[in-house]
């Protein structure tokens, strides 16, 4: 499999009244063609900003300060705005958490998809509309002819997300950025939407960057994963490996703090403290003041990602027992 997306040392900063924050601070990741990379992290860890950086949709008070985003070998950061617009939707598409706020409330579902199609393909309106019905059928919407004529508020949450996916898929992108695509949905609907995404992925050989706070979703859908904390990737590798032998204390903490099927005790393991404010990050490793394994080096020097086993990276000076420090 060849590399489709290669992010190197990406830094995205925001200037606000309270100061500058580094929302994404030196992230390097790569996604191969057709594969799913899961990105997990808590709110404020920079996972959404990472996706928006790839789309170059950072709001006006922010900018991509350094690094590169290679898509099929081409640096997206050196494209003109016009060239980037051609990439968005066509090669790279994105779906969001809350489909109601990302769909246009005054446009019929079918028209929104047709609009997206016509932005990228020179098609007469009628053909684009016919194609939009086809796309709605593809994402499993029953009675697509009728549903194409309704407005977003007339659809259920699950159906809205299907419309969003139909729109994202309208130009057969090579990469789908899915930012918490099922967080607003019920668990049975979530499972159907995740199945739909993998189905479409397989059919179109599309890569997916799946952003979520839910470890369970990553465990079930992504073969590879990265864990983010306060703007940085702290651990990355094969999902199976990270779950069975986590190296970074934060990853281990996340896994253990989840109520699980085979743990009868009434006390969950917790990670003490709270996620640090990006305005006021601790020196050294950003996790050290919550970390039970912290040593003096952690308070001074920030660790970079190091390869602990083949394909298994972590940024930690004193990893979980079973791993030896590099």
């Amino acid at each position, binding site marked *: 499999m060849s590399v489709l997306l290669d992010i190197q040392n990406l830094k995205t900063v925001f200037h606000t009244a309270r100061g500058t924050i580094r929302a994404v601070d030196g992230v390097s990741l790569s996604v191969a063609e057709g594969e799913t990379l899961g990105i997990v992290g808590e709110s404020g860890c920079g996972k959404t900003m990472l996706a928006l950086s790839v789309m170059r949709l950072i709001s006006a008070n922010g900018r991509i300060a350094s690094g590169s985003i290679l898509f099929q070998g081409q640096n997206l950061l050196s494209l003109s705005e016009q060239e980037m617009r051609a990439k968005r939707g066509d090669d790279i598409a994105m779906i969001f958490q809350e489909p109601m706020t990302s769909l246009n409330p005054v446009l019929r579902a079918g028209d929104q998809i047709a609009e997206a199609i016509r932005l990228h393909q020179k098609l007469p309106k009628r053909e684009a509309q016919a194609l939009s019905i086809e796309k709605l059928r593809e994402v499993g919407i029953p009675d697509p002819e009728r549903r194409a004529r309704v407005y977003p508020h007339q659809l259920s949450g699950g159906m809205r997300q299907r419309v969003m996916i139909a729109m994202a898929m309208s130009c057969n992108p090579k990469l789908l950025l899915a930012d918490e695509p099922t967080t607003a949905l019920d668990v049975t609907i979530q*499972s159907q939407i995740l199945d739909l995404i993998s189905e479409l992925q397989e059919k179109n050989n599309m890569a997916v960057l799946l952003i979520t706070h839910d470890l369970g979703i990553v*465990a079930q859908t992504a073969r590879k994963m990265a864990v983010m904390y306060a703007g940085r990737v702290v651990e990355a590798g094969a999902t199976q490996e990270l779950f069975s032998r986590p190296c970074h204390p934060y990853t281990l903490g996340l896994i253990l703090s*989840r109520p699980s099927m085979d743990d009868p005790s009434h006390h969950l393991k*917790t990670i003490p403290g709270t996620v640090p404010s990006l305005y006021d990050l601790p020196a050294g490793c950003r996790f050290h003041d919550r970390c039970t394994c912290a040593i003096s080096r952690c308070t001074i020097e920030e660790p970079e990602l190091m390869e602990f086993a083949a394909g298994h990276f972590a940024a930690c000076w004193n990893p979980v027992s079973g791993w030896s420090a590099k």
Partner: protein
Amino acid sequence: MEKDMQDPLIDIRHLEKGYRLSSGLWNTRHRIVKAVDKVDLKILRGETLGLVGESGCGKSTLAKLIMRLESPDGGDINFKGDNIFDYTGDALKAYRRSVQMIFQDPYSSLNPRKQAESIITEPLIIHKTGNAKDIKERVFQMMNKVGLSREQARRYPHEFSGGQRQRIGIARALALEPELIIADEPVSALDASIQAQILNLLVDLKDDFGLTYLFVSHDLNVIRHMSDRVAVMYLGRIIELANQKDLYANPLHPYTRMLLAAMPLCDPSAKKPEKMIRGEAAIDDERGCSFKSRCIYRIAICEELVPELKKLGERGLCACHRAAEI
């Protein structure tokens, strides 16, 4: 009836609550949506009863009815032998003191203009629990119990993190020494590492204060961790009620099975269940079982007759015509 059972703190009988729904701006056609439809449920003293269901199943309406924030269309709720809807004046005030609620969103359930201390103080003043000095002492005691420091008393909600805000909400609910706590999705808005902290706190407080919990959530993992018994709700009805262990090990109702199959497991090597998750919760036909359109086991009788919630051996209650055979 069941004399050998622990005595119920809350006994809900044939409770009904419907809302009128108009189907368009100028449309005068109304239909009644039964948010709570002939619900019978007991909350036993000292237990944690988990109430699980997807959005729109009526779990929050049921919680509001128990809080007496809504009045029912039929049926009653008995608290220590009295119908709570007969309460007026002092009796109502005393009831409100005994039953307190913790809300989902700690951002919108705290007054942004009040300091943490006065948020927790307010119920004590309303219920005239003592002189100013006693109240102040009690507030600090509560803050200490939920893991907040005295120094934080003068801070406003926005100065706290999500988890800390939820602690304020918990302190406020506990200040009046209630008997029953209704926790409506208390950790859904919180980050993974904070969820575990709050769940542990709730477990500890239950033991310390001898509380009874009605724990409402859509998250099956959290419900499993917290509950002694679990009630599953679907479109206004309780469709299954059983001990936590039985329900998770051996779910009877096809909907409970679907929910459990849809739950993402934190284990990358777990095999995904075959496609048994389909459809969305919707009332398209008022006759018969409300789950019939999504059910793989449906037979002729399901179209006609609403299944009763019946006892099945020693195993608990289930509302399915075919519960015994499937």
